[in-house]
């Protein structure tokens, strides 16, 4: 077991940075997921950790030791590839034995290891078979067994579930998590699938364009997305983003509910939703529509659980609401989160910034609303402390009751 660390890691492929200065550090025995769209650099990052790709700049550390100049086999890592990369001409037994033979492990010990790994992954009946005779799930387990027998310090997994069908994937995800818990080895897992990332990761690093957008627990990633990218990449359907002056307002579809479903206590924002389409998905109803925005109309989605039985008709304007606590504020320029702070005291003075607030400034969110902007988008009901401070000051959409 060891800690994997990258320092200012960069990889440039013919002038295009694939990985653009990444600093990451796993905890001991942690399950760290690298999540991002294709082309975000997550696989390149993993390959640099594995030693299959040389960094253009920066360092990779495994167990506190800089391994930049070590070949893959000297790094004591194990990797499971997207295709599993089993040796097609070898039996399952020979596949698992290969890394042991390469290390010169004596025969009895090899047999012992194979027995142990195949028992752990329940693949004993398959030992005599060739990879092409196995199903996707079985191949994955063989690949894991092959990785496991090496006693690696770190597991690297590159989208190991993407070749499985949906049903098997859910099962395999569970098995992977369970497996990692049992062996307790530090694991770096690459995926573009947010469900996998949320389900598996102790922490998730969301990557885009070679940079880490956010590193945090699944809870943090979902409930406090650090950038508009994370907000829209994680969550299905994605977070609704609407422009309001210098900042962008975000709210998750499941928090965007008919007015009567959102308590007035704690403050809320009201929006007039013109419903365009309603999808019934059994447990949920997706309501697609538009709300009046800065330039024309913004498309938004509401996700109503089946417990909300209100009749929603297409082509009709409905009044929807979002609780203030569920509103996220982002800078329009940087896309970074602006932490909205609860109102400390009623008489507190606040500044209305002339310039757009930077990411670090912990301005009350509402204050970013420039005076004079006139969007009759919605209104905020009078609320308690959680109401954004903008409430009395900003013209619309905030309607002050205090």
């Amino acid at each position, binding site marked *: 077991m060891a800690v994997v660390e990258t320092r200012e890691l960069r990889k440039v492929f013919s002038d295009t940075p694939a990985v653009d200065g990444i600093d990451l550090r796993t905890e001991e025995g942690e399950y760290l997921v690298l999540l991002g769209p294709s082309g975000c650099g997550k696989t390149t990052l993993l390959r640099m950790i*594995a*030693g*299959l790709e040389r960094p253009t700049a920066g360092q990779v550390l495994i167990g506190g030791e800089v391994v930049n100049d070590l*070949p*893959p*086999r000297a790094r004591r*890592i*194990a*990797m499971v*590839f*997207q*295709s599993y*990369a*089993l*040796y*097609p*001409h070898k039996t399952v037994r020979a596949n698992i034995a*290969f*890394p042991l*033979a*390469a*290390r010169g492990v004596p025969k009895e010990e090899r047999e012992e290891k194979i027995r142990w790994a195949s028992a752990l992954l329940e693949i004993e009946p398959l030992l005599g078979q*060739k*990879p*092409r005779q196995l199903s996707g799930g079985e191949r994955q387990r063989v690949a894991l067994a*092959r990785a496991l027998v*090496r006693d690696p310090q770190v597991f690297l997994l590159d989208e190991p579930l993407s070749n499985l069908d949906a049903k098997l994937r859910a099962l395999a995800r569970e098995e992977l998590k369970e497996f990692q818990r049992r062996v307790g080895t530090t694991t770096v897992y690459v995926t573009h699938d947010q469900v996998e990332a949320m389900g598996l990761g102790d922490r998730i690093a969301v990557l885009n364009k070679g940079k880490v957008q956010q590193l945090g627990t699944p809870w943090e990633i979902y409930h406090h997305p650090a950038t508009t990218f994370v907000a829209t990449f994680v969550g299905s359907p994605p977070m609704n983003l609407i422009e309001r002056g210098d900042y962008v307002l975000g709210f998750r579809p499941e928090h965007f509910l008919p007015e009567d479903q959102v308590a007035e206590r704690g403050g809320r924002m009201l929006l007039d939703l013109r419903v365009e389409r309603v999808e019934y998905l059994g447990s949920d109803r997706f309501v697609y529509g538009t709300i009046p925005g800065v330039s024309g109309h913004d498309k938004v989605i509401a996700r109503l659980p089946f417990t909300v039985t209100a009749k929603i008709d297409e082509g009709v304007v409905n009044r929807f609401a979002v609780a203030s606590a569920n509103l996220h504020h982002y800078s329009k320029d940087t896309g970074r989160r602006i932490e909205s702070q609860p109102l400390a005291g009623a008489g507190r003075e606040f500044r209305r910034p002339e310039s757009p607030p930077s990411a670090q400034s912990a301005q009350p969110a509402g204050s970013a609303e420039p005076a004079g902007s006139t969007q009759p988008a919605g209104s905020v009901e009078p609320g308690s402390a959680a109401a954004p401070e903008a409430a009395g000051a900003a013209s619309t959409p905030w309607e002050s009751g205090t």
Partner: protein
Amino acid sequence: MTATQTREVLADTTPQRRSRYLLDREGVLGPLLLLPAVIYLLALVGLPLVTAILYSFTDITTGRPVLHYVGLDTFRAVVADPVFRTALRNTIVFTVISQVLVVVLATILAFALRADFRGKWIARFLILLPWATPIALGTIAWLWMLDSLFSPIDWVLAHIGLLPPDGHMYWLGKPDLAMASIIGVQVWRMLPLATVILLAGMTSIPQEVKEAAEIDGAGFWRRLFGIEIPLLLPITSVAVLFGVVFTFTDMTVVYVLTGGGPQNATQVLASWAFYQGINGGSLGQGAAVAVFMFPVLVGLAALILRLASRVEVS
């Protein structure tokens, strides 16, 4: 729908209209496109093959071009001929040794050419050159290289002290050396094709499998002999099949370099069939020698194709 439109739609189904789309049908277009190739094969491969088989059961000669059936007499006469047996042995030696060398060298070359290095383009070009050269031309060049008096190889050997000054190897004059020379030239000729086939085969090995071996701790030799060469086997067997068929039936190198000599020591089946049938005029005997190769080649091809399908890469 207006009346005019209706009439147009109806017109579309008339026989004349339908014949316009005849070529859209696979059942028509396919055979039509295949026809030229089929005619070519029948005229230039099928007809001579049938003629040869027919001739081999007769005692036809150029002087007496009558098909007189003699049963297996021609075959008996051919097999009884000591030159035929020499030719048969030579053909096998020639094929086996040259193909073993070709496979080994082509594997080494293919691995070397896969790597990135400066001048890789030139190296690839030079190695492919023998394949692009007309066989007869290349072999004539070798004829000069192996000349009994002016061989540059002898000159080099003399200069590095392996031969006395003005010493000569007489490459094509001594039976064993002549055979070795023929094998050498054949290897030179067949190597490019095998190398290209193997290079193409290498791209079929998934990158991830090679990387997995690297991560699994395998060094260069273990990756080479444990993973890459076994995975290349199906492709290698295809290269061998091509090589064997080409070599077994080839007479160009023998014909140009030694003409089967000295004293028929380098005669192979193909050249012997030619000398018997065309130069000697015994069409029947020449055909019998040629037909003798046919079942051998069919058997070889079947064997190698079966091997190739068994060692399958999934």
